[in-house]
């Protein structure tokens, strides 16, 4: 019974969050400059006609007050009709479904690199504290986090595609296509999170219970896995969860450089084109992803740190 009540509360919370977000997006568009009908026709002709714009505004219902427009949209959504993209005329979920797999693919590949990269950097740096590997990783962190992803992407293309002919420049289709964009997205996040992990590990390594474990004669591997890494992973799980949410939101610059047909580009195009039905759907999807990822991270956090579960 308690479980069902908990789920019901979470669903209610999700509904309130999503309604608030959709209202916010609608209000922002109402306040933002630009007439969607004019933008659509200007995309189709450099010299649109005033009467045609007026006609299209009427057809799209843009002459109504925005409260009326919002309630009309809300009513449709409640009946499962999310509407069509104002620009292409395709159902918004078809638009999202066409780009979603590419984004998920890139996000998961990047996330994999973020997790493995941060674990590698963090562990090496912590166990070789203030020695050459730690210094090298520290320098790499500064360099990687200072590099704009646009520049990094182009450099990777230049060396690995043009000069060494090892990997494809652009596009999607095979495993090699995924390497450069995923690496470009992951690098700065992985090294920064590696620093966070390093700090957490160092903090734990000097704790009394670690000294106690050593004096008890536990093997170094057991001490590392059970007592050091396990406790350091709890805060990392939160960071990884946030990263995954961000990666699933799409990466406009990386998608542009590598001609990756993801959600990031679609979102920017929809915002620029004032394609409100599409923007609403994307924003709500992102919100749902963030809320879900946060729930998963919370659960994982409880698993890794029983104190959190007990307190909560």
């Amino acid at each position: 019974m308690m479980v069902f009540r908990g789920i019901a509360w979470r669903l209610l919370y999700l509904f309130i969050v999503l309604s608030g977000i959709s209202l916010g997006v609608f209000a922002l568009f109402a306040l933002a400059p630009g007439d969607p009908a004019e933008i659509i026709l200007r995309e189709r002709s450099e010299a649109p006609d005033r009467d045609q714009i007026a006609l299209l505004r009427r057809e799209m219902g843009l002459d109504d007050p925005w409260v009326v427009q919002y309630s009309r949209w809300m009513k449709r959504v409640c009946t499962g009709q999310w509407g069509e993209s104002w620009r292409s005329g395709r159902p918004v979920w078809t638009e999202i479904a066409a780009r979603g797999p590419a984004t998920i693919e890139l996000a998961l590949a990047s996330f994999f690199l973020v997790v493995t990269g941060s674990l590698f950097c963090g562990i090496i740096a912590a166990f070789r504290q203030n020695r050459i590997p730690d210094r090298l990783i520290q320098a790499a962190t500064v360099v990687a986090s200072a590099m704009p992803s646009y520049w990094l992407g182009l450099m990777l293309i230049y060396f690995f595609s043009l000069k060494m002919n090892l990997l494809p420049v652009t596009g999607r289709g095979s495993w090699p296509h995924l390497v450069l964009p995923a690496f470009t997205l992951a690098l700065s996040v992985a090294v920064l999170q590696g620093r966070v992990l390093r700090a957490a590990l160092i903090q734990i390594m000097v704790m009394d219970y670690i000294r106690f474990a050593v004096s008890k004669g536990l093997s170094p591997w057991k001490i590392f896995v059970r007592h050091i890494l396990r406790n350091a992973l709890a805060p990392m799980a939160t960071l990884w969860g946030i990263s995954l949410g961000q990666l699933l939101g799409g990466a406009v610059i990386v998608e542009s450089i590598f001609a990756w047909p993801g959600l990031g580009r679609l979102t920017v195009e929809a915002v620029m084109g004032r394609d409100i039905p599409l923007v609403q759907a994307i924003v709500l999807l992102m919100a749902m992803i963030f809320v879900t990822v946060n729930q998963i991270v919370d659960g994982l956090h409880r698993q890794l740190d029983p104190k959190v579960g007990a307190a909560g």
Partner: protein
Amino acid sequence: MKQCGEKKHHRKGRLALPVIFLVLALMVMAFHGNAHGAPDRNKTLVIGVGRDFYDGPDSRAYLHGSTHTWEALTYLGDGLAAEPWLAESWRSEDNGRVWIFTLRDGVKFHDGSDLTADLAKASIERIASRPKYDAAGMYRDLVRIETRGRLELIFYLRDPSPAFPNIIAYYSSPIIHPKVFGENGRLTGLTATGPFRVHEIKVGERIIIDAFPDYWGKKPGYARVVFRTILDARSRVVSLLAGEIDAIADVGGILPQQAGEIRKASGMALKQVEVATTHYLLINCRKPPFDDQNARQWLAGILDREELTAALVPGAGKPATGPYTPLAANWTFEPPPSPSESFPLPRPDFSGAAIEFLLHSGTLDRWPYRDLSQITQALLVASGVNATIVIRESGAYYDDLREGRFHLALQPNTLMTGDPDFFYSYYVHSEGFQQNGCQTSEMDELIVAGRHAMDGDHRREIYRRLTRWMAETLPLIPLYHDISFYAHGPGVSVFSMDHYFRPLLLEARPGNQK
């Protein structure tokens, strides 16, 4: 009991990481598309373009015209004069109020059915009846369309329209089979008559088209063409240099500053074509100081178009002397004396004026508008005028233009009909969407007279007068006419692009063919 629970917990913890990684790897594999095998470069041409050629169901033609999947009644050829395409010939009656087009016989749609006047009529009516498909209002004077026999299509117009075959050229009259018309005129697919038909569309990624064996005209040299959307200009060029794509085409496909890099690369062919786009400096005639004609002429005098073009778009622009592209040969007139020849004009009194120079952020990566505005700003500041550059995204830019919240703005415009009325109706006539307050009732009358004058000489005289008026009044300053770069690699022997940025796919040949 507690110890047992802890052990279980530890076991779960140990398993958590490998399980997460395994799930991630499986998910990546599940979402990953199938590998595309390398195409046979003698049969497949891969062209990189900077935008998605997929327009979608709620568009005039589903795919961009450059895909060669659809054809229109007419196209604009040399001199931007209308030339036969699906319409083999045409004639006018009732002093230009009735236009009769005879369609080409033996044309087949991609589904094997014949092109008839009835199908063409339905296709044009779909466009003419919806603002989304007729954004420029090309069919505003259309009363009705009728058919006569199997191949004659008759347009009845409200007023005489001497340029009607130009007006309906290319994007204004794509002929698509009505069987793909869905609800509200939306397209459920593309069945047309072009030399290529759709094989596969991956939105935002690639469009694959195959040669149509029953095409009525010349057979293409390639069995398959792939248009790859590569938004980033640098990535496009690197893809060409790496041999991932065979060619780069379309407007702004290659930026002027990238030309040198391609020229230096071995086996690459860099080409240029003058296109029908002109870049304008719009002047707000409603706002001081440019409500004064002397101020506008002074501004035109300090902008040396020859120098600007040579410095900013070397090889990619032609200084403008007329109001629109000189490709419209029949409507190009001797330039009236430029204000710069009588330079320096006395500087009008600009005391207290703060000039706002409006730019569209979306144009900055494609054309050197930032440099152009900064040079103009420097010239104005050197003349003691305070000038600010304002960069706006599309919605805000169009709002500011419409509401007149600017002094100067930069904008490209393509003469899509090849007819001067297209330009004057938009930029000068008082009903024009982009007129900036310089219009007079006399010029309005002249524009309307030009739009309907059936006598060729009389019409030319009208546009000669309008050109002169433009040069004197300066509601805008045409800066330069665009010359577009395009390129292909060693795998292609013949590849070219026309003045409307269409890659000529029928002429394209692989490297082993001439």
